[in-house]
């Protein structure tokens, strides 16, 4: 499903990018000459990276999440994320749809300590947990708005932050539709999920995937033909968050409810 979706999208996206780049780079080359050449050439080559050998993504099976919060805990421990409940690279939300159709959502401390019993337990139409994290968009609005190139998409599709280069303007935080970014109070730079880049480049799983007790999170390479992620993509109908914004997330959800935003 999603594979097909991607292939259909690709030419249009490429077209858009190219058309936008044309006048832009023309203006840039004439005005600023060599200043832009390096970056422009590099960005052109970046366009091909979708077909790169390693291209990472994640699948989340909503119906398997038990809301234990182990992923949130592991993420904070692995990545030295501030312990205070205002800074999360990943968190878990609980959705409760009541009999009258009212939806209540909560995520106490990001779900790091699990969830208390809900108050209106007898009055539940359906309820479920949804783990959230940076969607590692293929068309990342945060990268688009960064004025200095301190946040970027690597060749393997992961969006990273260069904390030694970030000026702390927080435009990327405003531009992220998913609330996945925060300003690290210790460094005054933007920070976010890296898919545990230091782990996946060593062949390990991201910490949240490693500790998920029910296997609700599946990590892998989107282009590998035989991988648990690919298997999930074959078997389930997948959705992404806020598809209308055309961010092309690489975190895919199965069994996602329409109420999730």
């Amino acid at each position, binding site marked *: 499903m999603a594979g097909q979706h991607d292939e259909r999208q690709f030419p249009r996206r490429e077209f858009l990018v190219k058309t*936008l780049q044309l006048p*832009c*780079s023309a203006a*840039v080359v004439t005005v600023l000459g060599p200043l*832009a050449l390096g*970056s422009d050439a590099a960005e052109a080559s970046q366009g091909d990276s979708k077909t790169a050998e390693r291209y990472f993504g994640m699948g989340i099976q909503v119906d398997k999440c038990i809301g234990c919060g182990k992923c949130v805990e592991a993420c904070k421990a692995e990545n030295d994320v501030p312990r*205070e*409940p*205002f*800074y*999360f690279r990943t*968190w878990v*939300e609980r959705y409760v749809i009541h009999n009258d159709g009212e*939806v*209540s*959502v*909560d*995520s106490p*401390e*990001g779900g790091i300590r699990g969830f208390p019993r809900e108050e209106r337990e007898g009055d539940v139409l359906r309820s479920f947990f949804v783990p*959230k994290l940076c969607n590692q968009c293929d068309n990342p*609005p945060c990268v*688009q*708005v*960064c*004025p*200095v*190139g*301190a946040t970027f998409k690597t060749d393997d599709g992961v969006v990273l932050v260069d904390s030694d*280069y*970030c*000026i*702390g*303007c*927080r*435009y990327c*935080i*405003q*531009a*992220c*539709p*998913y*609330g*996945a*970014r*925060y*300003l690290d*109070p*210790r*460094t*005054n*730079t933007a920070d976010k999920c890296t898919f545990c880049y230091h782990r996946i480049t060593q062949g390990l799983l991201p910490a949240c995937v490693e500790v998920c007790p029910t296997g609700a999170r599946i990590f892998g390479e989107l282009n590998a033909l035989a991988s648990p992620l690919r298997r999930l993509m074959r078997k389930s109908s997948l959705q992404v968050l806020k598809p209308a*914004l055309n961010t092309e997330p690489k975190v895919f959800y199965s069994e996602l409810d329409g109420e999730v*935003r």
Partner: protein
Amino acid sequence: MEQHLERLQSAVEQISGFIYPNEIELHWGLLVVLYPYITGLVAGAFILASLEKVFKVKELEPTYRLALLTALAFLLVAPLPLLAHLGHPERSFEIFLTPHFKSAMAMFGFVYAWYLMLVLLLEIWFDYRADLVKWGEKAGAFKKLLYWVITLGSRDLSPEAVEFDKKAVHTITLIGIPSAFLLHGYVGFIFGSVKANPWWSSVLMPIVFLFSAIVSGISLVLLIYYVTTLVRRKQPDMACLDKLASFLLYALIVDFSLEILDFIHRLYESEESIGILSELIVSKLYISLTIVQILIGTISPLLMLAYSRFSRLPTELKRVAYFIAALLVQVGIFGTRWNVVIGGQLFSKSLRGLTVYKLELGGIEGLLTSIGLLILPFLILYILIKLLPPWPEASLAASESAAASGTTAD
């Protein structure tokens, strides 16, 4: 940092509904409210100045140089709130070294430099050059040197040279108008292009910003002109004030119409976000939007200006009415900036809840810093006025005879 965390903790208790956990911290505070407010004043003041040059509105001549200096004074301060708000101001030079051409914000440095260097400074230089030469001849040693430095040694006072100055000013103004549009339209684009934020994301945003900029610039120059004439114990030029008030009224009408269009459009389209935005307007933004921006800042001055402009009020009363209206407009425009910048961050991108903004008193993001940054352009303007008297009677090149009274009057 401890304090910071405590503040966030107390904000948690005031959240209504659900927000993403990272959204508890509100990232763009009062300093970022100041930035579009100040750049708006710059753009507006410049556009007012160009009315006199390009569109030959002769009544506005007394405010031409004043408007230019005002624009310069505020433009010099404009980047300071941004700089102060950065997490790493010492790295801000990166924006010039490795600007990301797809980022709206990366263009700030270039738009700013273009406007400051190529438009404002050049126009002021050409406009004042002849006067500077003449003032230099009469001044003491220190000032003489200073004026000589400012003229960059260009001392030709032949009619051809003065004519060239005039032509140059005219050309620069022609370039300057689109530049001023660019400067503030661009600021609107910074907000309007954030697709993640339904309160900001609107194609009308740059245009609304532009017209509110014109409104704020005209009213600021009106205020400064009125106050400076009083301080100099001169009689304000009533034709000029009337013209300013008329332009302010027209700009205000266009601005308000655009905002109403935006409002009706949102309401009529009634997208996914309409629920939470309605809740925002009737709760957290009620005072700053409905009361301050619309009632106090738009409708009251609109009525006051319309009435006093087209009725037979005594001149004294008229002037006071203009003054109060212009003051209210400033309050209203500040409210507009607040409602855009802060309002856009008070609701969750999950569209399920509202958060709070807590203004601090001290600290770099605090109220005192911002007040300081608002006073600073007036200090700069004071120095500029001392150095480059903008009053028509001070211009030696224009009329040799009025020279003596002009320089002493200041």
